[in-house]
């Protein structure tokens, strides 16, 4: 491939190839860092928009008026929520009054590992919304817990939790119908909804006893 007919000594050859490789590395690294710098603001903006979109899925935008992304708490790893790593809790307020808490939880016992959830719980203790953010459940079978994959588009499975609270629903009803509760499930895929239901119940219990403390803690308002 080399067009030069010149003969090189072994060290000369090594030096030459090393120099060429070095030039290629410099050129492509420069290209990479230029692309990174140039796209950074746009990527950060869309990541933020993505986050807001997800938060608005569990809590309608009309239910709060504070900049939620700035009103946060960092939770330590919390066993009750199934979280082995620190997570962020968002506090929604309307007219300065507590409106809802939005936080992550994990159902550790899905059919194929951990199922990550985002849960919004209103100040009155009822569930405002739940979304599955990450899972490895079987496509077409257990993945209907994610409304994007749910065939029922008008009232996806996950919306059953909306409005439930500890006051309206006794502990034994926080289960799928097969186990004597009030949550529907699809035949043939019980493990996934059971895991999600248990995780949501745990999260509601966790938030119920420390709601006021969570809203007040480190508050800048």
């Amino acid at each position: 491939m080399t067009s030069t007919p010149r003969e090189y000594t072994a060290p000369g050859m090594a030096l030459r190839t090393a120099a060429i490789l070095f030039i290629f590395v410099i050129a492509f690294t420069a290209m990479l860092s230029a692309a990174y710098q140039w796209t950074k603001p746009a990527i950060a903006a869309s990541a933020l928009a993505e986050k807001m979109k997800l938060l608005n899925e569990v809590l309608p935008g009309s239910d709060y008026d504070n900049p939620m992304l700035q009103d946060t708490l960092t939770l330590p790893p919390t066993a009750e929520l199934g979280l082995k790593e620190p997570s962020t809790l968002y506090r929604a307020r309307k007219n300065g009054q507590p409106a809802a808490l939005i936080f992550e939880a994990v159902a550790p016992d899905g059919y194929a590992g951990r199922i990550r959830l985002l849960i919004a719980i209103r100040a009155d203790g009822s569930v405002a919304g739940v979304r599955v953010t990450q899972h490895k459940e079987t496509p077409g079978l257990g993945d209907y817990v994610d409304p994007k994959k749910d065939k029922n588009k008008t009232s996806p499975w996950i919306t059953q939790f909306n409005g439930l609270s500890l006051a309206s629903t006794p502990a034994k009803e926080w289960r799928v119908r097969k186990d004597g509760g009030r949550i529907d499930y699809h035949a043939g895929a019980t493990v996934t909804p059971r895991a999600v239901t248990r995780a949501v119940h745990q999260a509601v219990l966790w938030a119920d006893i420390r709601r006021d403390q969570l809203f007040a803690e480190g508050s800048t308002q």
Partner: protein
Amino acid sequence: MTRDEFSTIAYNGLWKQNTALAQLLGLCPLLAVSTNIVNGVMLALATIIVMALANVAVAMLRNLIPHEIRIPVFILIVAALVTVVDLLFNAQLHELYVVLGIFIPLIVTNCIVLARVEAFAAKNPPLNSTVDGIFMGLGLLWTLAVLGAMRELLGSGTLFSGIDMVFPSLSPIQVLPADYPGFLLGLLPPGAFILLGCMIAWKNWMDARAAERAKRRPPTPEAIADTAEAGA
């Protein structure tokens, strides 16, 4: 590029050297994402973009790259290009990135790209190399679409599930009755291997039949050229 060269490249990419059916390259991402048509086609589209770009870049730089260190340089070029494409996609076409984005990193590690760069782009001019990249990708596209359709139909009785993530106005087609219990094997990797095996067998059967027919007919000049090429 002549018409002949073009049709040879196209035929190689779409059928004769089909990446999935003949070269059997990059099976890991292929089998992982071909659970439905939409995912399969998305992976193939990402592959087309990456292969066309990698091929054209290598073909343009091919005379500057010493033979001894070509592989590290190829890897450098492919990885850098893909990362730039990934970043640009994320920044400029975010909607599309959300759908296609997860497939781009899968492609970087895919040996199809390096194989085509080494086997074709390093020896051919930029235009031919671009066409080769595109047709190798198109070959992958139809294979993945067929494989995805079979797995989807067997596994959950639908077609085009997930299309609403790409075009919100469209919805998946329920082919089999809604109470179809689903045949799990179709969706799991072993089912993908079995179905891909069937497709390879079908391709070989078609090729064998075509060869049989060619033998019966008096050989045309093209056929002679073909055999000479195959023997070389």
